[in-house]
């Protein structure tokens, strides 16, 4: 009986007395922990405990689904950059997820959620939780909440990496990630989700069309402007030279991973699953989230067929994601047909915004700005269409606040990085590819390709 694995450890408290190293870092169980056991032995389940478990389980499931989105971004971006930059893109995604986790523990969480009180940011300090073996107060386990919030900040950082691919140096990118995940995202996140000033005003963003996606998009846009376009993307005469992505199946896989993860992203943002009403709402969110993505795909397919006479698979994939971003600000109140329409408008935005950005010579390698920034704005604006507790005015104030702060601060940070360590590889390194030039490991070393297109 595996259940007995833990016979020696018991259901009671772990009286931790750290014998050797690191004693300050380990945690001691509060003695009250032992009082939890009797409750479980009662004939009937305690309503509070049952709800506590369901709520925590929601965070854990939502958390691992959103964690999985890190793989989705990695695959999507690996598929949409050219072969010579694929290893680098994979590395950046693994690294940024890791940095986000650490920074959000060391700085971010408290900055976002502790003592915001209607203000502009919280406290500084490493986050932590009660020691093992103890029961938690409140409606869910503290660490599950941290885990769930942490994976969101990683999402914002992933968005930046896609736009700036194929020309940014590794280290300045990682430094920006430190700042974004440790400071910028938590500060603006506190405004709404930490009960800061925008929450007090009534701004509404259920799962983060603005707070997560647009924030990533604004940071990416600032980076794209400071960094400049990839060499060869724009001709002197305004011509746009496409640089097709290396692998459509990886891009497709990445999109499906993100789609799957989004059920955690939106569904678990209900933040409670312990009542009929809550789990019914989560169900609505699942259905609406899926339908918005379907709407985005179908809109992108129909529109590219009509405009270009050929369906563009990358637009269809972007359309799915734009549909998902669009419904993220309010996945609960729309009816299912409305959800399809909200998502479809996201898909339309992508189809028009991608070439528009090219006209402006803003080189966004994977389409992150249309998908996350523009569809994020649309989704946030659409909230009052179905949620009567919100107003267009407040939504616009929120959108502007997030935009001004994130775009502004990002611009400054990118400029400082550019001025100090430099952010862009040399022309030669760019031609050679970042895989060889920066990290010395090719993505497909036996693929002899000079990168010449057929």
């Amino acid at each position, binding site marked *: 009986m595996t259940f007995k694995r833990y016979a020696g450890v018991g259901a009671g408290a772990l009286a931790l007395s750290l014998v050797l190293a690191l004693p300050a870092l380990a945690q001691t169980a509060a003695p009250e922990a032992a009082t939890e056991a009797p409750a479980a032995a009662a004939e009937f389940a305690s309503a509070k405990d049952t709800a506590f478990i369901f709520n925590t389980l929601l965070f854990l499931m939502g958390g691992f689904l959103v964690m999985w989105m890190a793989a989705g971004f990695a695959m999507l971006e690996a598929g949409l950059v050219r072969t010579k930059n694929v290893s680098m893109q994979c590395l950046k995604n693994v690294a940024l997820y890791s940095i986000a986790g650490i920074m959000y523990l060391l700085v971010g969480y408290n900055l976002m959620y502790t003592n915001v009180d209607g203000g502009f940011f919280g406290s500084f300090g490493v986050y932590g939780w009660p020691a093992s073996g103890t029961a938690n107060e409140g409606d869910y386990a503290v660490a599950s909440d941290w885990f769930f919030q942490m994976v969101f900040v990683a999402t914002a950082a992933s968005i930046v990496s896609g736009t700036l691919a194929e020309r940014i140096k590794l280290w300045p990118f990682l430094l920006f990630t430190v700042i974004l995940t440790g400071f910028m995202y938590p500060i603006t996140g506190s405004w709404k989700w930490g009960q800061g000033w925008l929450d007090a005003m009534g701004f509404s963003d259920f799962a983060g069309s603005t707070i997560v996606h647009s924030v990533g998009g604004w940071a990416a846009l600032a980076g794209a402007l400071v960094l400049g376009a990839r060499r060869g993307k724009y001709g002197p005469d305004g011509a*746009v*030279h*496409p640089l*097709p992505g290396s692998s459509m199946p990886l891009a497709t896989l990445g999109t499906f991973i993100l789609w799957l993860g989004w059920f955690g992203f939106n569904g678990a943002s209900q933040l409670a699953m312990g009542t009929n009403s809550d789990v019914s709402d989560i169900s609505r969110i699942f259905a609406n989230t899926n339908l918005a993505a379907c709407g985005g795909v179908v809109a992108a397919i129909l529109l590219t067929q009509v405009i*270009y006479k*050929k369906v*563009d698979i*990358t*637009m269809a994939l972007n359309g799915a994601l734009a549909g998902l971003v669009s419904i993220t600000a309010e996945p609960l109140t729309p009816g299912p047909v409305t959800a399809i329409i909200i998502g479809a408008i996201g898909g339309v935005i992508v*189809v028009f915004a*991608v*070439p528009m950005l*090219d006209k402006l010579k803003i080189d966004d390698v994977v*389409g992150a700005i249309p998908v996350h920034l523009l569809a994020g704005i649309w989704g946030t604006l659409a909230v009052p269409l179905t949620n009567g507790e919100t107003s267009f005015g407040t939504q616009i104030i929120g959108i502007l606040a997030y935009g001004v702060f994130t775009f502004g601060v990002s611009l400054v940070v990118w400029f400082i990085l550019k001025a100090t360590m430099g952010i862009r590889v040399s022309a030669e390194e760019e031609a050679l590819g970042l895989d060889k030039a920066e990290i010395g490991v090719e993505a497909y070393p036996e693929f002899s390709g000079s990168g*010449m*297109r*057929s």
Partner: protein
Amino acid sequence: MKIVMAIIKPFKLEEVRDALTAIGVHGLTVTEVKGYGRQKGHTEIYRGAEYAVSFLPKLKIEVAVPADLAGKVVDTIADTARTGQIGDGKIFVYSIEKAVRIRTGETDGDAL
């Protein structure tokens, strides 16, 4: 000895190989190449931007043969690789001075 070098459409390879075997040519070397010529390629659209695909996939066949067989090889390739559509490719013939079979060290005619 001559080398007959032909640029053909990829899907014609098997047919050409069979025809050459039929006239007694039992060895050849194939390379994947890209061709640019009168067959102008096409324009594609990727994420809303047009671009010209001007290099088309072709195969290059190289066959070393005794000089007297070269004409027949050229004709055979030309006949079997022809579709009549633009882009069928070219055949070039040039002389080689020496041929060696690595395995045995045989040279010239014996090496082919």
